[in-house]
């Protein structure tokens, strides 16, 4: 606990979000505020969740960090650079909700794809892909095609591919929401293990309170209409986290605290 506090105060900010706002135009040409006035600092190596119901702008916020969405107000700096500069330097890996695998490529070739964009040699790519597949436990499936894998395995490939480029930051957009409960729990443990081992900064979007509390150092609660940051809850559960922690009173109290921090009361 104390050690965690110490590191948190000592480590520099990796991602700095200032007064961020995104306004869309709907079909009628009217302005819709997706998110407004978001301020958030994320430390290096921190695991932060963006939690909220649909329409709260959590994915929009993540996409702004990834340079997939242009903010209309405020700015984002990652390691002192703009999101575009960070993207061009391959400093972040993005894990989409759907695995987005290429079905004509084998699992290994899918993991190699981003490395091809970085002009790595064939041997470098192959070695890196093997290493990543070993980390997610799919070594035996390297030469399978994506449609021969289960949903959970496909999502592991997706994570392996994002980590293959050695990013500093992992941006994850509801990566486990389409999976069944058992697979999800297994992947939670795997993700935490990988995170501990690689020491990445993770920004994780979810609409599942238990998932956010179990995984994160901090849970950022967003509320809709307009999307805004309504609370930030520190999760001081010890690490490494295990599945039986979900049964402890401390865990349940934190879940309750997060739930009550939604503006307008409970999470509907």
């Amino acid at each position: 606990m104390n050690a965690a506090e110490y590191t948190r105060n000592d480590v520099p900010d990796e991602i700095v979000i200032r007064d961020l706002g995104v306004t869309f135009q709907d079909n009628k040409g009217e302005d819709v505020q997706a998110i407004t006035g978001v301020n958030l600092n994320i430390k290096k190596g921190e695991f932060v969740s963006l939690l909220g119901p649909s329409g709260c702008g959590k994915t929009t916020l993540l996409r702004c960090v990834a340079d997939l969405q242009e903010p209309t107000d405020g700015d984002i700096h990652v390691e002192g650079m703009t999101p575009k500069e960070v993207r061009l330097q391959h400093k972040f890996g993005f894990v989409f909700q759907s695995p987005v695998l290429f079905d004509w490529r084998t699992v290994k070739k899918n993991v190699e794809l981003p490395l091809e964009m970085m002009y790595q040699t064939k041997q470098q790519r192959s070695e890196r892909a093997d290493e990543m597949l070993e980390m997610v436990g799919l070594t035996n499936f390297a030469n399978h095609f994506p449609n021969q894998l289960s949903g959970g395995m496909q999502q592991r490939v997706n994570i392996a591919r994002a980590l293959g480029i050695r990013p500093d930051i992992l941006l994850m957009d509801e990566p486990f929401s389409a999976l069944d409960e058992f697979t999800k729990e297994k992947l939670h443990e795997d993700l935490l293990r990988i995170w501990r081992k690689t020491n990445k900064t993770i920004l994780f979007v979810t609409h599942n309170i238990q998932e956010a509390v179990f995984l994160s150092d901090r849970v950022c609660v967003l509320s809709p209409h307009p999307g805004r940051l309504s609370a930030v809850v520190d999760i001081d559960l010890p690490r490494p986290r295990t599945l039986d922690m979900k049964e402890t009173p401390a865990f349940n109290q934190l879940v309750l605290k997060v739930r009550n921090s939604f503006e307008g009361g409970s999470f509907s």
Partner: protein
Amino acid sequence: MRKKHLALTEKKWFQILFWAVLVIAAWEIGATAVAMTKRTPENILPHLYQILAAAFSGKAVSGGMTASGVVLTSAGATLLRALGGFAIGAGLGFLLALAMKLSGLVEKLIFPYLMLIQLIPVLGLAPIILAITGDINRSRLVIAAILSFYPVAANTLAGFKAVSKDKYDLMFTYAAKKRQLYTKVLIPSAIPYLFTGLKIAAPMAITASILVDTLQGDGGLGCMLSQSLKHAMSIYVFWLIVFFSAFIGIFSTYLISWIEILVYPEKRSAAGIGRSAGKEKKYGRSTEKNRTQKEPGPETL
């Protein structure tokens, strides 16, 4: 017992046998009925054994060649031109689809009018094209190319458009160049659609080539068809050519399916042997169905 029947109807060889028996029975009933009316020349619908006998008889029917010899030599000229026209049409179709994908302007200018090509009775224009090109072989090429062009262009474009937004986003996060987006994502994604187009186009190119033959007595399959109908040869030769043409039309589609399996690794894995082969095949079939449902169905336009 019932389960056993169902299992039998699932078998490919059983389905083929079922249809073969049905068609042969219908044909023979028809042939007998025609023979009984005695008002038409009796062998306008000959019995199948008579056609088979003609195919294997050594008797010369035209220019010292046997019936099978006539069919095979005339098929050579027709098929070669059909293949040439098909290759040109398919190549241009693919390039046009690529151009339409690359440029919104090209798409807006061309795509709405592309289907007009399908509405023009190209085969009706065959005599004009023959007059313009002045050569039966060149007009076979041109007409086969025009007919192959549309299904390939429309299906390939549909393939480019079916690439999900997630894939573009993913490539964007990798800071992929436009060329990389095309070579690594868009073109490979469009390949199954391209093959759908090729499967439609191949028999059309062959049909077109045969029909163009009928315009000039230069010894193609179509030319032999009209000659045999005019009783220069026997009616058996006519039916031999009909069966042979039908066979090569069907065969061309299968040939393209085989090529697809060779070039597209996903298909290869689905057709592959092994423990999971059966399961994978089923999966492959269902995605095929989804794909055709999702498509706007350009070939029906």
